């Protein structure tokens, strides 16, 4: 209480000083200068300033974010230096139904400091060659540089003064205020300052007929100028209002979501903010991949919601120590499916449903829900799988002990290509080392063993993330974990992908678009009957890989993605069935060939 009183006393002292100073400057410059204060426009702008300041919102560290900047810069453009300073004196005043005696120092402090900074800015603007009287394109272009300079100068002075005031009054650290409060506002301030300046120029053209010694033009036109400026300020105010709401909502969204997910995880106490940590790791990797900002946001949300389907699994199963039965394990394995189906029901969240659905797929196809493999798994899901596994390994579970960071990293490396995308593992470990979460050079002790046959054809995706990956891959970088050993480098050398010309899109044994129309369906059946498909498979010599898939070019699917994916899965199932039949048929033919005398086979060919 005492400290606050002292703070208020100091603030009052400073504000009285500044107020006197700015009054003195206004008086001297209006007496000395050749341009008098035009009172009518000044009063009008002061009213507009009060209205704009009243609409502002409180910022977390104190201070208010308003669009008073627009009004101040139209005053700078339309009025002389003392006029603009006089208008700025009102920037602390706002329409307040319940004024308080203790608000006065703040009001005076705000007004005086912003008036002084306005004076400095206006002086700088005119010194640098800015103009406010000529409404021509050339004049406007000449003024843009000085204008930008003065806007940034004003922002700096205002930030400094508010930071000082908050420090005096509440002891808020200036650094906190500047970084969290003032810097994010700079772009908006610049835009609104520019718009306000333009308004001021128009205003000067229109409304100045009313003032001065000689009245030229019509009063009607002058008043219309006032009306136009008022209306334009309203328009700016609406934009400010909505964008402020948006920013607030974005902050609320992220923070609330994390709190909520953390709360829901109390059901399984050992999880302990698992999803939040997974989000951190996923974002780490996402940033490493240079994903655009909106994709990062989606990735974060997907990471937070990836285990939402666990809510459908009974607690007895989840928290049991020791062995669980197959049936129960099946139930656990359904959780990505359940979570994704919940998310898919909602139009606004269906874009992250895919990542949630596939976050337990393995890179070699051994995972669960749809048994996708390689690049067909959406990138978001591959990222989530990695982050999820890494986070889980660092924590205790009822059925196992936790691992150390190095051990977990080694585990990731061992499973690269089996469970995880090897390129992502590489980048992830790099990112961990860069952010100091993993000591550099640790991984040298655990040589990388990427089973080469498990890695399918390199991505030729044009998508940003994919391209980044393939570029990283092409360069054949070593692990990048600080002191990478020579062996690792050699290995990276070996793993280098052949240059672009040699790389070809693998021809799918079963084209994705089969059975679209009746003709193609019949053609497909005929070709299958002739055994072309079988030769294709034989030619590749990959019985273990029944079909080649197109690499996925998407992070998350948008809009109609669900239907596409269902279609894809259906086709794949059909292809698998066909392949089985084919193999069975071939086997039986071989068997028959072996059993029957050679003449039978010739007969058979002749028949075909």
């Amino acid at each position, binding site marked *: 209480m005492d400290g606050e009183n002292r703070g208020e006393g100091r603030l009052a002292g400073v504000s009285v000083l500044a107020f006197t100073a700015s009054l003195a400057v206004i008086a001297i410059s209006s007496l000395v200068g050749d341009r008098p204060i035009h009172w009518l426009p000044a009063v009008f702008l002061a009213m507009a300033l009060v209205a704009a300041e009243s609409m502002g919102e409180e910022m977390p560290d104190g201070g208010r974010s308003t669009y008073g900047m627009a009004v101040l810069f139209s005053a700078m453009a339309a009025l002389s230096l003392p006029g603009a300073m006089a208008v700025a004196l009102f920037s602390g005043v706002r329409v307040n139904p319940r004024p308080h005696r203790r608000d006065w120092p703040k009001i005076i402090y705000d007004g005086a400091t912003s008036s002084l900074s306005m004076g400095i800015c206006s002086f700088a603007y005119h010194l640098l060659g800015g103009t406010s009287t000529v409404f021509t394109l050339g004049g406007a272009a000449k003024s843009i540089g000085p204008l930008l300079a003065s806007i940034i100068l004003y922002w700096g002075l205002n930030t400094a003064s508010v930071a000082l005031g908050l420090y005096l009054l509440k002891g808020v650290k200036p650094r906190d205020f500047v970084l969290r409060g003032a810097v994010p506002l700079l772009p908006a301030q610049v835009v609104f300052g520019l718009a306000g300046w333009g308004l001021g120029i128009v205003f000067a053209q229109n409304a100045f007929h009313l003032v001065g010694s000689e009245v030229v033009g019509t*009063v009607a036109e002058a008043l219309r100028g006032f*009306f*136009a400026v008022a209306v334009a300020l309203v328009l700016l105010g609406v934009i400010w209002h909505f964008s402020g709401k948006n920013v607030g*909502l974005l902050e609320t969204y992220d923070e609330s979501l994390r709190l909520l997910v953390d709360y829901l995880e109390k059901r399984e106490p050992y999880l302990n903010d698992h999803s939040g940590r997974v989000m951190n790791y996923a974002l780490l990797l996402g940033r490493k991949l240079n994903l655009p900002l909106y994709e990062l946001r989606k990735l974060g949300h997907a990471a937070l*919601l990836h285990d939402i389907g666990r809510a459908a699994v009974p607690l007895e199963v989840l928290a049991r120590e020791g062995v669980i039965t197959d049936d129960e394990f099946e139930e656990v394995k359904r959780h990505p499916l359940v979570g994704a189906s919940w998310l898919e029901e909602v139009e606004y969240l269906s874009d992250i449903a895919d990542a949630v659905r596939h976050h337990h797929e393995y890179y070699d196809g051994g995972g669960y829900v749809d048994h996708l493999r390689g690049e067909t798994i959406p990138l978001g899901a591959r990222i989530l799988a990695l982050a999820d596994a890494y986070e889980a390994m660092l924590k205790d579970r009822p059925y196992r002990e936790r691992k150390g960071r190095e051990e977990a990293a080694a585990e990731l490396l061992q499973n690269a290509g089996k469970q995880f995308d090897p390129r992502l593992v590489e980048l992830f470990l790099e990112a961990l080392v860069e952010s100091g979460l993993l000591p550099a050079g640790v991984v040298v002790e655990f040589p990388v063993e990427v089973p080469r046959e498990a890695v399918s054809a390199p991505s030729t995706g044009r998508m940003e993330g994919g391209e980044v990956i393939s570029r990283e891959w092409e360069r054949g970088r070593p692990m990048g974990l600080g002191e990478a050993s020579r062996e690792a480098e050699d290995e990276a050398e070996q793993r280098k992908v052949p240059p672009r010309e040699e790389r070809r899109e693998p021809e799918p044994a079963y084209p994705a678009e089969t059975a679209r129309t009746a003709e193609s369906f019949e053609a497909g059946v005929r070709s299958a009957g002739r055994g072309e498909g079988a030769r294709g498979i034989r030619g590749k010599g990959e019985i273990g890989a029944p079909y080649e898939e197109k690499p996925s070019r998407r992070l998350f699917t948008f809009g109609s993605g669900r239907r596409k994916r269902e279609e894809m899965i259906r086709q794949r199932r059909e292809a698998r069935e066909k392949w089985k039949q084919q193999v069975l048929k071939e086997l039986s033919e071989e068997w028959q060939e072996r059993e029957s005398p050679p003449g039978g086979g010739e007969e058979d060919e002749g028949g075909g």
Partner: protein
Amino acid sequence: MRAADNRERRILLLGWISGILCLLTLVIAFFKVRWSDLDPARFMALVAVFATLEVFRIDFPWGRPLRLGMAVVLSVIVLRPAAEAVWIFALGTLLSHMLSRWRRGREGELVHLAQRALVVGISGVFFSYISRLGWDFSWNPYPPQYVLQPTPEGVYYTYYNPVVLHRALAFPLAFVALAILFYLGEAVTSSLEMAVRTQGDWRVWVRQQLRQTFPAYLAVASAAALMALYFPRLPWANFFVFALPLLLVRMVSNRYRELDERFFQTVRVLGEAFDRARGLEGHSSRVSNLSAEVAREMGCSPEEIRMIRYAAALHDIGYVETGRDGEGHAERAAALIENMPGLKPAAEVVRYHHSSGGEGARAPLGSRIIRAVSDFDLATASGKERVSWREALREMDLERGEAYDSRVLRFLRQVVEAQSRARRAPEREIRQRAKVLEEEELADSLERLFHRDEGGEE
């Protein structure tokens, strides 16, 4: 049964009345336009500008979207005679719908357009009168002693000439009056439609509509004023210069709505995840929808409704911590929600959603609504001993004033009745259509069979 018929009949009636009035407006306007004096290039240019901006729309949680073409219409009313404005509106609307592809299921928009044509006509006539209103509030010409003749150097006026002052103030005042009339007309017509569709009270809808569209409408009207004011200085360019801030408004406003909806749906999915574990699938989302309806019908502000929706989606989340007995789950949920920035009012609503008696009377309105709606939903939609909504309401009426707020109960009954009526009507329609479809399908398959036989012969 009869009520449902009534509803359909009302919708049809509204459509027909609007259509006929719209036609009437168009015909009268057609004869009022001086087609011989018309500058066709200017006319078509205004139509094109209007049609272009009409494609962009600002959406709201309920009711009609606000189309940016409205700014052009307002400024056209100022710049051109009313009859011409009506025809510019009509042709521009046609053009814009051709631009944005007419889809099925948008027949309802026809009614909307008809009503808007009417509003345009009325406000046009209103503006032409009010802008001619003299300085002494009569339509008399200015007294001759005040009218100054222009000199060769231009027009020199003094300050204290009432004619001059009137001329200066007439435009802003008339424009503000026009904007208010247009706003009211839009709100009333759209609320009438919403009221007929949901069987609600149209006056409540008007209030909601006015509140929810206010900022966006303010921006549109301001841009319209600027467009009209700067027509002499920046002919034609003015429409595009002032459309830019409008597009910005559209962007930020629609983004807010989308973000809010995404946030709400995320919260709802999370809140609902554990409803299923308790065997109450979909409880939270049903409660949040119904509570929002009740709150809207009770005349809460959009922000209050928003908070009630969030609170309803999270009202049972405390069960995660307490387990099945649910002792103190409201307090725990409130403690969680309190930490979420921007949802603090929802925390209070959740905290008191199980209070009854004297404490219940002092609880926030949102809590009282959620208490009633939640119990109603538990009774009607889940478990083995589910009852019909009539019975549930009757049971709850016994505890009126004790457990439940009687005013809330009254509005709950109103909303539920309207919903059940509205639900029944399309069901019957679907059944009838299905019957027709079945017959058509049968005919179709017969025909196909027939053709295949023919093909087989070939």
